[in-house]
């Protein structure tokens, strides 16, 4: 498809601005002015609408396709939450209003949403307090690690190591490194759990904390998690809970009760806010009592009369994590979702997320190798190792599924399992959808026996064939106006 810049025709415009009702202020000194205009496209409104509508049709989406990406929780994003976020009383509210003297009274509704969201997430995760500021999961991780660092600094602890299992998301080590820590990686044991003996062998007074996802990225809840917490706490380390997989345990277990000191929650996973093609997300962070005083400012408070305010006084606070109070438009959607489901609905959410994943596991384990053959939580981890022996790799199966209009599962993650295929169906999919997916996966397996060569051409039903990713990196064209970088 042509780019907007290629569709541009001089003197077209897609939006009508008001005529000026004030006299011209005259010219600024030339030194302050740009010499050439920005070469933005010139198109009529219809042509813009058609361009982006046609582009949107070149995407798979939860609204149109089954999207069982492991670790991403691609559940349905309820439409009413979009309506709530667009209410003018929220969407048009200036973030600096409550920072005026006495200005909180102009934003009582918005502050209540923040306060109540914090309270709900605290109850769900068993933490003492939350900050809604972090703008994505990785941003929440960084916040959590900064809280960890502040705790150790305040206690005079000399800590420099953060322990992370090898099955963790890449953001975990990256976030800890950005905050200035060294990373020690713990391998998984044969059942896919953390190797506790290995953990013991790296424990020392230099350990600042441990970052884990529970259930882990193999889709397994580690029953020894409380023992792990005890070990980490024995060296005054902090237990960090990566909430990427929280959708599995709502109402069944709470990180706070399991011994975690700090958690982040991905509202765009567990709490059904849209992924937006890669954001905006939201990664609120909850803490237990020992980290509470370090939380970012501002904090939202509520007095005895039910009046909300922003508190910027935090002598021990790590400071500002975002410019304002978080991805407010996203938080609103998650809050609306929690209100609609309530405690029982949230518990039911996990029940069916886990049921759906186990159903897929039981239906597919004949055809695909299961590295850890056991009940799973909200996602099941297969390997295409048998198919790979026939020359068909996980990526080829992914492209076969794309050809059939199903978004593939996550492939090649976790990095510790060869030919990994990680499937997370979520609770919002019906048995019929899961059955269609099973049939496709079995058909793919069948094809690996009959005609493995056929896979190289998939997909053929999409707007493009397989792209040349090497050329993209080698020639580096990232800007229409530039010659190759």
């Amino acid at each position: 498809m042509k780019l907007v810049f290629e569709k541009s025709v001089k003197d077209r415009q897609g939006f009508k601005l008001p005529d000026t009702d004030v006299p011209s202020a005259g010219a600024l000194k030339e030194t302050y002015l740009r010499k050439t205009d920005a070469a933005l496209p010139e198109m009529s409104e219809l042509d813009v609408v058609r361009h982006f509508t046609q582009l949107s049709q070149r995407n798979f989406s939860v609204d149109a396709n089954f999207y069982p990406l492991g670790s991403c929780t691609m559940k349905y994003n309820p439409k009413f939450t979009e309506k709530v976020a667009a209410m003018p009383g929220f969407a048009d509210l200036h973030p600096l209003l409550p920072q005026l003297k006495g200005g909180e009274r102009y934003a009582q509704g918005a502050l209540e949403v923040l306060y109540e969201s914090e309270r709900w997430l605290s109850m769900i995760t068993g933490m003492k307090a939350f900050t809604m500021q972090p703008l994505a999961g990785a941003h929440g991780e960084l916040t959590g690690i900064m809280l960890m660092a502040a705790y150790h600094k305040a206690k005079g602890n000399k800590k420099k190591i953060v322990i992370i299992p090898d099955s963790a998301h890449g953001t975990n080590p990256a976030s800890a490194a950005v905050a200035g820590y060294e990373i020690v990686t713990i391998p998984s044991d044969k059942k896919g759990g953390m190797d506790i003996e290995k953990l013991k062998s790296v424990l020392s007074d230099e350990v600042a904390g441990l970052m884990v996802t529970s259930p882990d990225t193999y889709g397994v809840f580690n029953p020894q998690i409380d023992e792990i917490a005890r070990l980490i706490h024995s060296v005054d380390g902090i237990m960090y809970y990566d909430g990427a997989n929280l959708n599995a345990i709502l109402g069944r277990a709470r990180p706070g009760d399991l011994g975690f000191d700090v958690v982040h929650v991905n509202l765009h996973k567990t709490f059904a806010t849209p992924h937006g093609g890669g954001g905006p997300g939201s990664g609120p962070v909850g803490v237990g009592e020992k980290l509470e005083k370090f939380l970012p400012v501002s904090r939202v408070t509520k007095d005895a009369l039910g009046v909300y305010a922003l508190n910027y006084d935090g002598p021990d606070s790590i400071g500002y994590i975002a410019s304002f109070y978080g991805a407010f438009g996203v938080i609103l959607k998650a809050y609306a979702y929690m209100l609609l489901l309530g405690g029982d609905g949230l518990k039911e959410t996990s029940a069916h997320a886990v049921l759906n994943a186990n159903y897929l596991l039981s239906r597919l384990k004949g055809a695909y190798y299961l590295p850890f053959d056991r009940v799973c939580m909200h996602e099941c981890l297969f390997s295409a190792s048998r198919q790979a022996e026939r020359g068909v790799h996980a990526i080829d199966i992914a492209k076969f599924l794309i050809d059939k209009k199903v978004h593939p599962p996550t492939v090649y993650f976790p990095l510790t399992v060869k030919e990994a295929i990680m499937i997370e169906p979520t609770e919002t999919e019906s048995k019929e959808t899961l059955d269609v997916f099973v049939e496709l996966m079995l058909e793919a397996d069948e094809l690996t026996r009959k005609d493995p060569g056929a896979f190289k051409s998939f997909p053929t039903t999409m707007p493009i064939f397989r792209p040349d990713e090497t050329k993209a990196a080698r020639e580096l064209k990232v800007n229409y106006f530039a010659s190759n970088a």
Partner: protein
Amino acid sequence: MNPFIANTPDDTRAMLDAIGVKSIDELFADIQPRHAPRSFDLPKGLSEFEVTSKLNTLALKNSVGPVPFIGGGYYDHYVPAACGALISRGEFYTAYTPYQPEAAQGTLQSLFEFQSAMCTLTGMDVSNASLYEGGTALYEAMMMAIRITGRTRIVMDGGVSPIYRKLIKSYTHNLHFEFVEAPLLHGQSDRALLKKLVDDKTAAVILQNPNFFGAIDDHTDIVTTAHASGALVIESVYPVSLGMLKTPGEMGVDIATGEGQSLGLPLNFGGPYLGFITTRKKFIRQMPGRIVGETVDSAGNRCFVNTLQAREQHIRREKATSNVCTNVALCAIQAVIFMTLIGKQGLKKLARLNYDKAEFLKAQLVKIPGVQVKTSAPTFNEFTVCLPVNANDVIERMMHLGFAAGFPLGRYYDGLDKYLLVAVTEKRTKDEMLAYAEVLGRVVKELQ
């Protein structure tokens, strides 16, 4: 009844049979009784109607009524209806990060168009596909300069947003960097001081244009000074102003960054917003975040993919250029839709409207006895006035009279209690501005 779960009791039974267990609870056997929640005492769920009306009640408690003259980096621009309509397409907003390019050409091409538009807007060579927001984007730009130069001293111009500076202070608390600040002189960057402060240990000079107080500058000479010491220059810019103002590229800046909210995004009480970063092509490998690149498919047709992923956390883990994973793709798409609608001529006109209107209001305000503009530095659509009384008191009274009068600089600066930062966008009419000036005059007089 849960409208987001399809499994009926019959489905559930059939699935449990296929799995070979008797109940859903059996699937949770790893979570042992000792792991059970100490409490899970959450309210009962509500209907869609009940939730919507509850939240509408809360929305109505917020004051979006008073005519807004507040900016501070976040502006009340008009958002064309087509922006909202297009990003409300489920194909855009319910998609994941475009890791499977065949199934994500819509997102990928839109982001490539966004990158290209940001490059021509800022006059730079390359752009990423967005970062969280303006403040975190400035932090990422600073880290990028530190990686490129291998130096850790940062010279911060006094015109940089105090919000961004507080944010950077939090992020760098444990990282042993040296920060030196160069206070403004007559409202603009202090050349002589900057020249003194930039040395061969300096990684970057961080500037903002227009600066937080509204003043416009041409930083070309500062770039020359910095480059002579091997330091980079980072400039945080306001995209709408680039419809008129000299670009970071024209000034020779190395990394341009900023908040993209003004490009068709609602104010949303602080987010989601749009951080952007553009730079010289030689620095692309040190740029954080996702980057979309052009390539061809196996039939030779042009298409788009995420590229240079070897910089990123999912490949490089602790050695990545940044821990950023999610960006704000949908906000970037909204921004490129906005830029496409407004177009080349429209952006110029929009910038001019903002400038002319702000100048008009400024001229009205300085007629009020005791109200002054203290510097002769030119401004774009926001300017600082010095009042004869405390700015907070003025704001409070004017709020009751139907105006969000501006932002009190005393909130972030000692000794500036009488200073008010006033923003004007294309949405403010002449009548609103005349009424504002009249009411401000009255309130100032009452308070004296």
